[in-house]
Structures are given as structure tokens and as C-alpha cells.
């Protein structure tokens, strides 16, 4: 830094050196001071400039922000304005809509109200005209008449046209009644059911029950007076009194009747109670679930209980506890539900001690009004004895039927049972066999009758088996003789062969038997074939028998035969000669027939 030639500069040359130095030193100090000041000033100025600059910067930024904000606010305002305008339009539209809607509805309601009013007026008029009660509309409670129905015109004795020229008060007997009514109706809007005396246009008195109501007619308030003509009160009261007396009399009669019926009911109840208690039949009521809910002493006795109470306590499910057959109760219930009742249903049941008895019960179902089953009622009889008798009877019937079959061929037995009148039939083609045990009667001398019958029974029983085997019909035994027929009662094409086979079989069979002394029995057999009459005769000890020449000849064949042999006629021989072996006997004298050619049947030819 150079010297600045300040105004205070001193001419050095004019001074002594010391002074000069001092002066210079002073000047240096001053300069230093100045320099320092400048330094400070400079720094201050710079700092100040910085501060100013920063301040300006900030101000600028604030301004920028403010501008942005303003812009934003403006657009927001714009948006709000838009929304508000739209809302305003909406609200205007809604308002219009609501108003129009209101108008429409109002119009509609008005129209309907008018219609309802019109209808209600019409209704009123119709009711009023149809009513037998006098109806009068007046402006004040007894004032001038605006309307009167036909009944009113009649009651008041005026034509319907003229009546509008009167006041209602004109027809009241008491002159001050209109005023009193007026007063009364200041407090109340109606008076109901008071009696008044009136007079009609012809000055005839009448009694009426009157009611007065305030009503609105076409927007105007008017008074409706109804007058119910009660005619002669005394007459009515008398009638009332009479009808009351009549009613009392009727009530008294009714009471007597009810008492009488109750007594009857009580008696019949007693009667039924007595029947119930003393009946020999068991009587019960059982619930649908099978619980006995009522039982009489007889039922307890039949079921083996000490008392009805004990029985009812024990039997809670009769399907399981009572009936022996598990499904029996279900069967009965189904039947009774279907048909309402069932009679004489027989079942086996367990008594209290576990023993089984037969009962016969009649059951009916009891339903309520809705057709639901309430319970079942039944009566029970012990039919165990009856049941046993029935079984015995059945057994006896079977036995007698079997016996009958032993005596008669089944077909004939059936005919007899059916009561067929025809007792005899003609059969063209049958074969008859007679067999006789040779010298059997001699045996009677040496053995007891019992033994005799025993041996005969054995022999004939074995013959019976053979007869059955060949399907032939045993007719009878006569002493020691045995008679069989083939082709009866049903025809059989091989009746001759079957009898021949039987004869051979009998001859074989007899060899199985011996007399007690060891000697054999011999059988004499005769056979003939031809027509016979067969049938049952007599009323007792029915016997099916055969008649005719064929029978006689067959018997002769046996009687004129020889022990151990089978004698047959020519007819039999002709029928059998191709398949059986015979030996001609030649001409034989036959009692009552003269001489006949007969043959000995030897055996059946073997198929080879």
C-alpha cells in the first residue's frame, strides 16, 4: 500500500531529523489506524452485502410461493364453483321434481278424496233411504230441516217435498226442547239414545228414541237426528216383561231337563260301571303304544292278576308282554285301524304266571274329532277250553272220516257226504275176486275165538296192503271170505290184470302164515269179469256193495275151486291168455249155471 498524500502531510525537510522520525512514526500509526478502519469497514460492507442478498433471496422465494398459492387457490375456487353450480343445478332439478311429484300426488289424492266423498255421500243416502229409522239433517240441533229420509217423512206425517219447510222443533211435544238441546250440544258433539215425545203433522203423539250427532256434509257442519219410533211404550214394556217371564220359565224347564239328564247319565254311568265291574268278559282300554289304561276285574282274573290295578301297572306294552305270537298285536292294530273294529279275534297270550291261554277278543278303535287314535277298547273271553274241545272235535271228525273211507270208496263217500241221492251205479267192466281160507272154520274148534280173530286179522291186513298196492277196492269180508273188485268206482283199463296180479300175490302171501300146529293155510280164489250194479243201501251202517251175475259167478268160481288155486272163467281167460299162464280145468258144473269151461290161473308170463 502506497502513501497517500494526505492533507496533513508535513514537509519533512523542514524539520529536524528527530522530529522528522517522530512525525513519521505518528504518521505510520495514523496510517495503521486508517488501514485497520478500512479493514473493518470493508468487512462490515461485505457482511452487510451478504445479508442484504440473503434477504432479497428470501423475499424472492416468498413471492414465488405466494404466486403459486394464488394460482392454486384460483383453480380450487374454480373447481368449487363448478361443483356448486352443478349442485345448484341438481338441487333445482330435485326441487322441480319434488314439486311436480307433489303436484301429481296431490292431484291424485284430491281426485280420490272427492271420489271417496261422493261415494260416502251416496252410501249415506242409500243407507238413509233404506233405513226404517227416521233420519233428519238440520242446520241447528232442532232447526230447519235440510234433508229427511222416507222413514222420517212417514213418522212425521209430511211428504218428503214439504218437509223441508219445517223445523225439527215443530214436531217436538215440549216447546223448550229445542233450546235445551241447543244448550246440551254446546258441550257435547253428540247425544245418544234419549227418549222424547213427538207429535206429527196431524198432531198425533209418538214416542221415539232419539240420537243427535254433528256431522260434516260437503264441508259444512250439520246435525243428524235419528228418531226410532218405539210406539206405545207400555205395550213394549209389557211385551218385554212377558218375554222375560217366558224366558225365565224356559230357563227353569231347561234346568229341570238338565238335572233329569244328569240323573239319567249318572244312572247309566252306574249301570255301565256295574257291567264293567261284574262282567264275566274281560273289558279293557289300551293306548296305541300298548299300555293297558283301563281293565275290569274279569280281565285281571283271565290274565291271572290279583287286581285290575296290578294288571295295569304290569302291562305297559302288550305287543311284547301279552301276545305269544310277536306280531299279533301289530296285525290286530292294522286290522282295527282299517275296519274300525274286529270281532272274535283268537290269540294266544301269556298269563301273569307265564302260562299260555287262548283268548277271543273283540276290539274297536276310539278316535277323536281329528280322526287321531285315542285308544282301543276291547272285550276278552278265555277260550282255552273251547279251543281244546275244538281240537278234539276236529280229531274226532278226522277219525270218523277215516272210518267212513274204510267202509266206502272215497268217491262214494264224497258223493254220500254231498248228499247225492243216487244210491247205485251201473258199471260195465269190472272184475270180481272172492277168496276163502280153506277149512278155517275147523280151526274154530281148536283155538279160542280171540286167537281166531287175531290170525284172521293178520291175514286180511296183509291182503288189505296188497289191495292198496294195486289200487283196487276191497268190498268186504264175510267170515273167512274176502271180496275185492277192480275197475270200481273209477273205471280202469287193466282191471282184469290187476285182479289177476292180486290173486297171485294173495296166494304167495298166505304161505307166510301157519296154523299153530305148523300146517299151512290154503286159499281158494275165484275170479270173473263183467258188468255189476254198485252202490250203498240202507240208512245205517253204510256198506258199499256189488250185485249182479258177475258177482255170483265169481263167488261160484271160488266155491267150486280147489285149495291153493285160482279158478277163472272163460271170459277172464280170453282177456289174459296172452300174458298169463293158464291150465284148462275143462267143463265144471256150476250151481245155477250148468256146465262152464274154467281155467286155473298159474302165473304171470315173464316178459321174456
Amino acid at each position, binding site marked *: 500500500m502506497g502513501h497517500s498524500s494526505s492533507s496533513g502531510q508535513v514537509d519533512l525537510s523542514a524539520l529536524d531529523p528527530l522530529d522528522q522520525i517522530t512525525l513519521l512514526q505518528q504518521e505510520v500509526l495514523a496510517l495503521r489506524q486508517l488501514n485497520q478502519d478500512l479493514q473493518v469497514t470493508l468487512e462490515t460492507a461485505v457482511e452487510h452485502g451478504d445479508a442484504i442478498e440473503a434477504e432479497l433471496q428470501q423475499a424472492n422465494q416468498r413471492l414465488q410461493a405466494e404466486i403459486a398459492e394464488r394460482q392454486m387457490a384460483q383453480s380450487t375456487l374454480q373447481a368449487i364453483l363448478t361443483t356448486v353450480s352443478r349442485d345448484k343445478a*341438481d338441487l333445482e*332439478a*330435485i326441487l*322441480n*321434481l*319434488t314439486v311436480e311429484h307433489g303436484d*301429481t300426488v296431490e292431484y291424485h289424492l284430491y281426485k280420490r278424496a272427492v271420489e271417496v266423498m261422493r261415494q260416502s255421500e251416496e252410501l249415506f243416502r242409500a243407507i238413509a233411504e233404506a233405513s226404517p229409522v227416521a233420519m233428519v239433517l238440520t242446520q241447528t240441533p232442532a232447526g230447519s230441516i235440510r234433508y229427511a229420509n222416507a222413514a222420517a217423512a212417514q213418522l212425521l206425517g209430511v211428504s218428503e217435498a214439504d218437509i223441508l219447510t219445517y223445523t225439527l222443533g215443530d214436531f217436538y211435544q215440549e216447546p223448550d226442547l229445542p233450546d235445551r238441546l241447543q244448550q246440551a250440544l254446546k258441550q257435547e258433539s253428540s247425544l245418544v239414545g234419549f227418549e222424547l215425545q213427538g207429535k206429527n203433522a196431524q198432531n198425533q203423539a209418538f214416542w221415539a228414541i232419539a240420537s243427535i250427532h254433528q256431522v260434516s256434509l260437503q264441508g259444512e257442519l250439520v246435525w243428524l237426528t235419528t228418531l226410532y219410533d218405539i210406539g206405545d211404550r207400555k205395550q213394549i214394556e209389557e211385551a218385554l216383561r212377558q218375554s222375560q217371564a217366558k224366558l225365565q220359565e224356559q230357563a227353569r224347564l231347561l234346568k229341570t231337563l238338565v238335572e233329569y239328564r244328569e240323573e239319567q247319565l249318572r244312572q247309566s254311568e252306574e249301570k255301565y260301571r256295574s257291567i264293567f265291574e261284574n262282567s264275566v268278559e274281560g273289558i279293557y282300554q289300551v293306548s296305541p303304544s300298548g299300555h293297558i289304561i283301563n281293565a275290569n276285574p274279569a280281565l285281571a282274573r283271565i290274565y291271572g292278576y290279583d287286581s285290575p290295578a296290578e294288571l295295569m301297572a304290569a302291562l305297559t306294552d302288550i305287543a311284547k308282554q301279552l301276545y305269544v305270537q310277536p306280531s299279533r298285536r301289530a296285525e290286530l292294530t292294522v286290522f282295527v285301524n282299517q275296519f274300525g273294529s274286529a270281532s272274535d279275534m283268537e290269540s294266544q297270550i301269556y298269563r301273569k304266571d307265564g302260562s299260555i291261554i287262548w283268548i277271543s277278543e273283540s276290539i274297536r278303535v276310539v278316535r277323536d274329532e281329528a280322526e287321531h287314535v285315542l285308544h282301543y277298547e276291547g272285550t276278552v273271553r278265555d277260550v282255552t277250553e273251547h279251543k281244546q274241545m275244538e281240537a278234539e272235535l276236529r280229531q274226532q271228525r278226522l277219525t270218523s272220516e277215516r272210518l267212513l273211507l274204510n267202509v266206502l270208496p272215497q268217491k262214494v263217500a264224497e258223493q254220500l257226504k254231498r248228499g247225492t241221492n243216487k244210491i247205485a251205479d251201473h258199471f260195465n267192466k269190472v272184475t270180481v275176486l272172492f277168496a276163502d281160507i280153506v277149512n278155517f272154520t275147523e280151526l274154530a274148534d281148536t283155538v279160542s275165538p280171540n286167537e281166531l280173530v287175531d290170525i284172521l286179522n293178520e291175514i286180511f291186513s296183509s291182503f288189505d296192503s296188497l289191495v292198496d298196492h294195486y289200487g283196487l277196492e276191497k268190498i268186504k269180508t264175510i267170515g273167512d271170505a274176502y271180496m275185492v273188485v277192480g275197475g270200481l268206482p273209477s273205471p280202469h283199463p287193466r282191471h282184469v290184470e290187476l285182479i289177476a296180479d292180486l290173486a297171485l300175490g294173495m296166494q304167495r302171501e298166505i304161505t307166510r302164515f301157519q296154523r299153530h300146529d305148523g300146517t299151512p293155510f290154503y286159499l281158494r280164489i275165484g275170479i270173473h269179469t263183467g258188468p255189476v250194479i254198485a252202490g250203498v243201501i240202507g240208512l245205517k251202517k253204510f256198506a258199499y256193495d256189488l250185485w249182479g251175475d258177475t258177482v255170483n259167478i265169481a263167488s261160484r268160481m271160488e266155491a267150486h275151486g280147489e285149495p291153493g288155486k285160482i279158478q277163472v272163467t272163460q271170459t277172464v281167460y280170453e282177456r289174459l291168455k296172452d300174458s298169463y299162464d293158464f291150465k284148462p280145468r275143462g267143463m265144471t258144473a256150476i250151481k245155477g249155471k250148468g256146465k262152464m269151461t274154467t281155467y286155473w290161473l298159474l302165473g304171470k308170463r315173464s316178459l321174456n
Partner: protein
Amino acid sequence: MEITTKDYSVWYDPEKATVFFKGFLRLDGMEAYQPIINVLNIAAENGSVITLDMKNLEFLNSSGISMLSMFVVSLRNKGNVGLVLKGSNKVLWQTKSLRNLQRLMPSISLELG
């Protein structure tokens, strides 16, 4: 969801996306209509197109039509829910007012039968 009184019934059938109206609606003021507005709002939240079936609504008072108008406006402002109005030609107010609702929301589909 159902509101039933002796005068009217309003119920929402989600399967048909339909709110049914029946009877006589004459509630006193907009506030009284709040429960019905709630039903309508629920319907609007649950369907892309909802139907208001008013064929059996015989009477609707002014508060009611205002309520309906506001609902229509709110639906229009939402912009993503379609609206079908079913009405009856036999009910006088429906023939007029339902058509007027179209002025608030032109996209309303109106079925008068």
C-alpha cells in the same frame, strides 16, 4: 336386508341386485328415510348395475322422491354404477316422477310396464 311395517316393505335381494319397494311410503322428512337410504347405499356398493323395482309402490311422498333424487345424484357422481328403474304404468306418480329422475342421471334405464 328388509324393512317392513304395516304400510310398506323395502328389501334388497343381492342375487338380483335389486331393491324392491312395496306399499305406501310416507315417512315424515328426509331423516326418517335414512334406513331406506342405507339399504340403497348397500345395494350401490355391491353391484355394477342395480335395479329399483317400484312396481308395487303405490304411494311415495315428497320427502321420498327427494330421497330418491339425492340417491340418483350420488350414484351419478360416483360414475361407476348403472341404475335401472322398474315402474308401473298403472301408478300415476310413477309415470311422471320416474321419468323426471332421468333428468338427474340421463343413463338411467327406465322400464315402465
